[in-house]
């Protein structure tokens, strides 16, 4: 496909975030001030240019937006107040929509109503399941446990893997990037390492505390997933697992609470504009940690049988999170970011092979 000019691209992007891309006069300050740009990986100006020119294909094939961790320095120093940092955020949302074959990510980013209906349907479904199971604690907890496993399996095979492959298709295959085979293998370890640590963000101006908070939430969340799904935290008798579960739950809701406060204060560049997807992400993650914590507390104090509503809430939160927010919301950024680094490295080794670097 050629790079056709699409004049509506600007309008479409405006639905994904706040900002006026027309303000930019292409001075390149944003690219040069960023601590993460490298000789052959330039953003955000190139993306802004693509939007100004309406080059949809160019935008869809770029990995730059995923490499940005939104420290906000570009927006602070932008001579045109064009807010390139927020634009990167908007492009990340837009790319999530592009990669997603179901079309739901785009719908949920653009329409609060659709998202609300989705949340409502899941809520009704969970209550219906509760009704079918006769609102019995044990049966429901067993159902919940199985549900989590199936959802994870289904999400990965049906949505996340195809979407990542789509991303690979757009950024590497269609761009005719010919990277040497060994770079696919060597880059893989880098990919895993980046996925869990996101350590590139340490280069940013925001400092290491924000990275640490972020890291602890990721680790806390993954361990929570592991303890509940694979170690069956709610039903286990093993003291070590019980305590581990409490700790990781605590990590998740304490730090997400701090993130929520940060977004309310709007002091830093990154928290000045909050899209509804940002709010849902932090609030649901917070609720996830908090409800899981309280459910286990009620199990330990034998109060759960008389307070089944509590588990129902947890189940609703988890179902909404798992079915709607994980595959179609901000959660996927965690994967796309890591794969973007992987693909960027492939591009780099391809350039090296051609002797262009």
């Amino acid at each position, binding site marked *: 496909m050629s790079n056709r000019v699409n004049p509506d691209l600007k309008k479409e992007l405006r639905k994904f975030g706040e900002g006026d891309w027309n303000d930019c*006069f292409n001075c*390149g300050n*944003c690219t*040069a001030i960023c601590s993460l*740009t*490298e000789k052959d990986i*330039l953003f955000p*100006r190139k993306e802004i240019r693509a939007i100004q020119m309406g080059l949809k294909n160019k935008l869809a094939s770029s990995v730059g937006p995923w490499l940005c961790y939104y420290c906000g320095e570009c927006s602070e120093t932008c*001579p045109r*107040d064009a807010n390139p940092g927020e634009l990167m955020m908007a492009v990340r949302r837009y790319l999530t929509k592009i990669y997603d074959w179901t079309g739901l990510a785009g719908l949920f980013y653009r329409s609060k109503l659709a998202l609300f209906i989705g949340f409502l349907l899941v809520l009704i479904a969970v209550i219906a399941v509760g009704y079918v199971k006769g609102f019995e604690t044990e049966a429901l907890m067993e159902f919940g446990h199985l549900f989590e496993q199936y959802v994870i399996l289904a999400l990965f095979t049906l949505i996340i893997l195809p979407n990542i492959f789509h991303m690979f298709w757009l950024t590497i295959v269609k761009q005719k990037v010919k990277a040497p085979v060994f770079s696919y293998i060597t880059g893989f370890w880098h990919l895993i390492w980046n996925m869990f640590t996101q350590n590139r963000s340490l280069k940013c101006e925001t400092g290491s505390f924000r990275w640490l908070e972020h890291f602890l939430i990721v680790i806390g969340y993954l361990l929570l997933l592991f303890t509940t799904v694979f170690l069956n935290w709610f039903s286990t008798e093993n003291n070590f697992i019980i305590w581990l579960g409490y700790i990781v739950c605590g990590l998740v809701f304490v730090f997400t609470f701090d993130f929520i406060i940060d977004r309310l204060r709007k002091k830093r560049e990154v928290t000045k504009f909050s899209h509804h997807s940002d709010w849902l992400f932090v609030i649901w993650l917070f609720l996830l940690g908090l409800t899981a914590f309280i459910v286990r507390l009620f199990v330990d104090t034998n109060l759960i049988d008389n307070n089944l509503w509590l588990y129902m809430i947890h189940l609703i939160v988890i179902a909404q999170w798992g079915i709607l927010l994980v595959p179609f919301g901000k959660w996927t950024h965690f994967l796309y970011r890591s794969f973007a680094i992987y693909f960027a490295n492939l591009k780099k080794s391809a350039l090296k092979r051609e002797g262009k670097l």
Partner: protein
Amino acid sequence: MGENERTGIFFCINLNGNEDVVDIFKIAKNAEKKPNVSVVWYSSDISLSDTKKFASEIKNLKRLIIAGYKTGTVKSFLTEAMVIAGKNPENILMADFNEYGANTKADTEKAKAVVECAILGVPFEAASVPGETSVCTETLVIGGGIAGIQASLEIANGNQKVYLLERTGTIGGHMAMFDKTFPTLDCAACILTPKMVEVGQHPNIELMTYCEVKSVEGEPGNYKVRILKKAKRVDISRCIACGICSEKCPGKAVSEFDAGTTLRKAIYIPFPQAVPNKYLIDADNCIYVQSGKCGICVKVCMVDSCINLDEKDEEVEITVGNIIVATGFKVFDAKKIERFGYGKFPNVITSLELERLVNAAGPTGGNICFRTRDKKGNWIFSDDNEKPKSFALIHCIGSRDENYNKYCSRVCCMYSLKLAHLIKEKLPDSDVFEYYIDMRAFGKGYEEFYERIKEEGVNIIRGKTAKIEEKNGQLLLRTEDVINDRLIEQKVDMVVLAVGLEPREDTSEMAEMLGISRSDDGWFLEANSICDPVGTYTGGITIAGVCQGPKDIPDTIAQSSEAASHVLKSIINGKIRKSIKDLSYDKIVSNAKEFSK
């Protein structure tokens, strides 16, 4: 009035958070009462995307008035609506408050008159012609830079008396500091100093250096101006400018004329070609004035009772008919942008500092040297070091930047090219890089000059440098080359920041004293930016040069001569226009009614 004359008024309340504006709702209520006004809208209530809906609302109207602020922003919308409604779009009248200088709450009556004139269908300009009054033939020019010099000479050569007031000890202003002028590379001093000397010797010019305006009272044609004559402590009628006092003086201060690159004495002459070419004492740095102990200059002075260290400031009052304001500018303080490291890295310098460096009469005798520390820790340009081999000039420092000044300072592109040329001329083996956003070579011969500089081997790169760091004794610049899509990390020996122009700190005091306005960007506001760039809304007060907005020397000269022609016109006619702002609402409306008959 019949059904066909029905008028609708669309009020634009686009205020950008500004509170001190005219009371639009009061004006709207007043306008609504007029017999032929049938409907009033506010821009805040109307959706500017639905033209069809609005077209249906104006079906019964004959005329449409757009009043308020930023009226131009809705004109296309309303024109479209008029066309859809089958009306003649020529029946849209503009009543922009800003255009007629009704900017603050105090101007509400004026804005009311603007709307009323539009309702009557009379151009506001026609109804608001102020009356005339007799004029005093003497003129005051405030500011002794090239603008003030040019205006004074024009008037004085027209055989009229001029007071030329200058705050510092010499006339000449910024132009005297420059080495060459673009695009012809003429020596700036060779153009300026003959004019300075002419001013100094002109029988019609009373030169008042080291003076400041204290107050301005009276009315157009007859202004009483109180002037503070700061004590020079040297009798300039006796001083023979031998310089021995300065040689022996122990008091030191930073030299304003050398843009802070060198020190001068407390008793000093600003620069060798100063007019008047006499010494003066800077009281803030004079040891005698500060502590009462010293007086060496008096002892060494060869002329009797020439230096009087106890001289006091005095005030004089003059009466003038016209005032030309030519107060110029200050350069942007590069320290405000920390990421460029000005004030932190010694070899990040401003364009004005380089201007002094390349000047043969400058601190290094025209040699471009590294800046180092002397034994006392002061930064100095020392001549005995090796010369810098690579230079980067960064454009748009403090200009075209929403965080500092939004406007383009207009001169930086050209003076940067000129400085690049001068560097290449002095150090032919050096590498010079220019980082620009857009190259604005707009004047006569400027584009050709730009081409010439490119041919001279200066590397001109499109992209704004984002930050400067020090690495191994060199300066590391990070820039995106926007045209070639690459990131440049360039190491150079010296960085020159092309600082923009800013209104002086006392611009608002000055504006208040003279009763003139300032535009959004802080410069003095002209009566009309297209047809009357030197006039103001206050009678008898004209503005010239950069104080009206950034401009280069040729434009400054042109504007100053225009200001002088305004003054001469009023003197020749013996009459001067009163201030528009003195016209009352009733007077304007009765004029308009007269006119519409």
